[in-house]
């Protein structure tokens, strides 16, 4: 095995964190775990958790109610949309675009929440092209 590539060398740079020099007031409050920093963190956590719970509620009120609906109204099992039985159409096809839509909305809102948080603590998030 004489034709092995040369061994890899780990190349490191100076830590990015200290490169920026002056740090914003908001981030120092959080790092020092002051009451104000605590308020910043709690507001971020509450926003993100509320957002997650809203998405889960939307999921529960649509997909989650289907078994109950078919239990309470058994006649739904005979309903057809064109050639497809209703249940097969809803669960076999239409569910998936709905899940993707919920996920897409969640990502938009959660990244907006993070931008608001960065603004609040006085730091700027880099815009990333999609």
């Amino acid at each position, binding site marked *: 095995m004489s034709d092995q590539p040369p061994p890899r060398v780990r190349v490191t740079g100076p830590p990015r964190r200290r490169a920026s020099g002056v740090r914003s007031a908001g981030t120092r409050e959080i*790092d020092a775990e002051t009451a104000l920093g605590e308020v910043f*963190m709690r507001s971020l956590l509450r926003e993100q958790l509320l*957002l997650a719970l809203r998405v889960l509620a939307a999921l529960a009120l649509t997909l989650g109610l289907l*078994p109950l609906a078919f239990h309470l109204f058994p006649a739904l*099992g005979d309903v057809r949309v064109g050639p497809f039985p209703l249940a*097969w159409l809803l669960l076999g096809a239409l569910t998936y675009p709905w899940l993707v839509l919920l996920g897409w909305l969640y990502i938009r809102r959660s990244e907006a929440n993070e931008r608001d948080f960065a603004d609040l603590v006085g730091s700027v998030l880099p815009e990333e092209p999609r």
Partner: protein
Amino acid sequence: MNADVVPGVVAVILVSVATLAIGTWGLRISRTTSDFLVASRTVRPRLNASAIGGEYLSAASFLGVAGLLLTFGAEMLWYPVGWTAGYLVLLVLVAAPLRRSGAYTLPDFAEARLGSRGVRKLCSVLVVGIGWLYLLPQFQGAGVTLRSTIGAPPWAGSLVVALVVLASVSPGGMRSITFVQAFQFWLKLTALLVPVFVLLAVWAADGAPDPTTTAASSWSTPLASGGGVGLYTTYSLIVATFLGTMGLPHVVVRFYTNPDGRAARRTTLAVLVLLGVFYVLPPLYAALGRIYAPDLIDGRSDVLVLELPSLMVGGLLGAVLTGLVTAGAFAAFLSTSSGLTIAVAGVLSQDVTGRRWGSYRLGGVASFRVAAAIAVVVPLLMSLPAQDVAVARTVGLAFAVTASTFAPLLMLGIWWRGLTPAGAVAGLLVGGLGSGAAVAWTLATSSSSGWAAALLGQPAAWSVPASLATMVVVSKLTAASVPAHAGRFMVRLHTPEAVDLQR
């Protein structure tokens, strides 16, 4: 050996060779322990999503779902729906914080969050147990497939899968397996998508007969039978699949390969898209199977996907399509088994084989390889005597167990700073022992009906709340032992990486 087995043999050999070739190629760019375990965290969302899809779509998805739909109808649509919706739940509750936690594996997360070696050990045991539970049906399914397509003895398929997995995982680790699994996702999608167009054309040429005419009306109702019991069973299945996904060790370990939390979210959304495209296909096979494969409905429904092409299309085209679906099925066993092997080996190499044994200690990469061998051999030996346990049943059991153990740990660990080590241990034990005992009882006894069988056969609806409640109550009772760094850890989990904070 007659002409019927040629497509199956060619397909199995091609998939195995391609897997080994891509795995070997990964070896050239895989050098450090970090490459092995988390691909040095440089995998971009699209590649990563393909890899997650490749790893996630197991034998249960590729063969099992279409078979269950053929026999039982719309109530089984909750399996693919739940396996996809689980990623939405994972996205909103876990994805970005899990990546930002900076941990390698689930036990790492538990230790970092709670600062407790005890919780770590319990999580390691659970990861290995769940991983083996999930590997077992993969090996068994491989045996069934090879017996159906080429008439090999059942142990042969298990052995081939185990050897290929070991050969592709142990040289290159996570980095090479990322490429292997991305390839296998697209192979699996192609293997279902291309035949379905041909089969639908045949169906249209036959005058498009209605698949529901021969079926009972319950075939179009998305509920298990039995009134209230059926409603409970369906909702319990929903709880298990929606929450179980986030706790699967081989899925979770993939999130650490993302560059940052934002990429973790985008990866998850891409997974939702890929799974949504894939899971539209099995119901089509089931509906066509109602018309063209009525013989398979009772007993042999698992081979529907493998046999439908040859039943509907004869000649060379039928043989090619059969080869294609066999290749897809084989890729399904390989990719899921590889992912599970990586996850189990990652934990074993950190907590068992990487430790000092006497005066001797293995290096990072060597200990990973030894751990991979252990991770494969144990479930392989377990699968040899038990070749006839239902594939989908064991996979369902794994979801119920993860939903009752890791899901509560992750949800509370990420969103509630009051979680204590004692609370986590108590909840993991209540959820793990409760769901594990229930399903062990179900697997040991033959199927029966009524409330007792439903409560034990689908435990998630009671074991998940029990585990969550135990974690909260015990944590409240031991509130003095909330880790001192809990607040700091919340900062790390929830703030975007670009904000300049101490983490």
